[in-house]
């Protein structure tokens, strides 16, 4: 009995979708366009998040050992540092490597300055990364407590603004994404409401011939849910292809700059699922709310 009536509601809903023709299409295309915007926002947000992570992962602390310690002694300390909790990796830079690098950094203009030096005045240096980039300063402080370490360049003046910028970007991104999402919710359910509004007379007639609210509501729900799901599927598929294309022509990097993009598979899954679920939920919910409104009359 219930299956019988469920299949009836489904058939009626699908039939209405088709008989409404123009109106269904108008609502459907509103869903497509709105969810496409949500999808693009999602695309941008996921990649910005990825970039933030990537940038943060570049963070490192330079620990300069006492100047009198040799490269060999440095290696012992390297092992000690590796065991500090929160440290992800340690790279040792010998005195010779240090000098070489300074030369390159100064460039040919000032490079000559170094020629006048007798002994190599540079210390052995440990380049340390934290497990969690946000703990970088914490790790630097831990390093400072090791007596053989003369000084630590934690880049605090650089790390703090960096995270500030990343936080800002993340927060603004989250707010905008939320705004996009709420807008989509509003616009889609609003469109469905307007579409159903124009059929309130029909709903009234159905009630007059003895249909229960549930019986009236079901085909409308099927109809608006189908609009939502189809409306979500189109931008999902379109964005997948678009992203795949962009990913390919860019070689997986943001326009030749240093940031790797989110790989296609991962993205495909997230976006497809998000848009389909959104379409489904909004179609269902929009239909539910609007029919309820006219069932109360």
């Amino acid at each position, binding site marked *: *009995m219930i299956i*019988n*009536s469920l299949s*009836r509601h489904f058939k009626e809903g699908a039939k*209405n979708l088709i*008989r*409404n023709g123009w109106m269904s299409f108008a609502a459907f295309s509103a869903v497509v366009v709105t969810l496409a915007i949500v999808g693009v926002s999602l695309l941008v947000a996921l990649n910005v998040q990825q970039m933030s992570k990537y940038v943060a992962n570049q963070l490192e602390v330079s620990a300069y050992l006492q100047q009198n310690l040799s490269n060999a002694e440095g290696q012992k300390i390297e092992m000690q540092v590796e065991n500090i909790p929160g440290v992800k990796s340690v790279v040792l830079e010998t005195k010779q490597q240090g000098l070489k690098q300074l030369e390159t950094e100064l460039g040919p203009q000032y490079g000559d300055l170094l020629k006048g030096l007798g002994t190599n005045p540079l210390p052995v240096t440990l380049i340390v990364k934290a497990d969690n980039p946000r703990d970088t300063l914490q790790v630097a402080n831990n390093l400072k407590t090791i007596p053989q370490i003369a000084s630590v360049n934690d880049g605090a003046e650089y790390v703090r603004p960096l995270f500030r910028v990343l936080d800002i970007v993340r927060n603004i991104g989250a707010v905008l994404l939320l705004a996009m999402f709420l807008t989509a919710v509003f616009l889609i359910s609003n469109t469905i409401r307007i579409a159903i509004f124009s059929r309130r007379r*029909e709903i009234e*007639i*159905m*009630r*007059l*011939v*003895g*249909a*229960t*609210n549930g*019986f009236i509501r079901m085909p409308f729900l099927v109809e608006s849910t189908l609009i939502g799901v189809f409306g979500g599927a189109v931008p999902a598929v379109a964005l997948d292809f678009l992203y795949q294309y962009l990913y390919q022509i860019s070689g997986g990097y943001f326009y030749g700059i240093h940031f790797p993009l989110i790989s296609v598979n991962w993205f495909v899954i997230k976006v497809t699922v998000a848009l389909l679920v959104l379409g489904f939920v909004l179609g269902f919910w929009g239909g539910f709310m609007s029919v309820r409104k006219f069932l109360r009359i």
Partner: protein
Amino acid sequence: MIEMQDVWKEYANGTHALNGISVHITKGEFVYVVGPSGAGKSTFIKLMYREERPTRGHIFVNGFNIERLKNRKIPYLRRSIGVVFQDFKLLPRLTAGENVAYALEVISTPHRHIRKRVKEVMELVGLGDKLDVLPNQLSGGEQQRVAVARALVNNPSVIIADEPTGNLDPENSWGIMKLFQRINDRGTTIVMATHNKDIVNTIRKRVIAIENGKIVRDESKGMYGYDN
């Protein structure tokens, strides 16, 4: 079966449509409701299936207390009444056949029964060949007959018809009346608002005359009255 006790109806815009109506219609009766345009006939009828609520008074229909009836019980009241609306009220997106079938679907009639029954009733009203036509592709009289078919289709214990022959030629009108009479003979109560003097004066039944929202006459085997 249908009972009204001192019923008043004032519409939201201040129109006093009914001013103290008391009436008792027993099971199996056939009642004409007559009266001039705007007298309150449709309002009287709309109260029975609770399209409108009375401002004052008590109404009982098929054992339902209209006043106390909860919103979600209304469909069950309406299923026990077949209504022919004055303005037909066909669902514009459903074909004539689907419109009639709808009244069966709401009471979860099995599919194969629906098909058969709809065909049968549509033939009774002379529209066996218009099953798959949309309402806006039907003539006025055809629409009215679809509305009649929908009211009959689920064998309700009461049929309420508001001007069911207004758009019909005399021949079709008599056809509908014969149908009503046959149904009435099987024990179905029939309440019918009409302006058709010929019918009322030929098929003699109880006549309730309403004027200015009051019952001015209530005679069994009455006449249309209102000579001119």
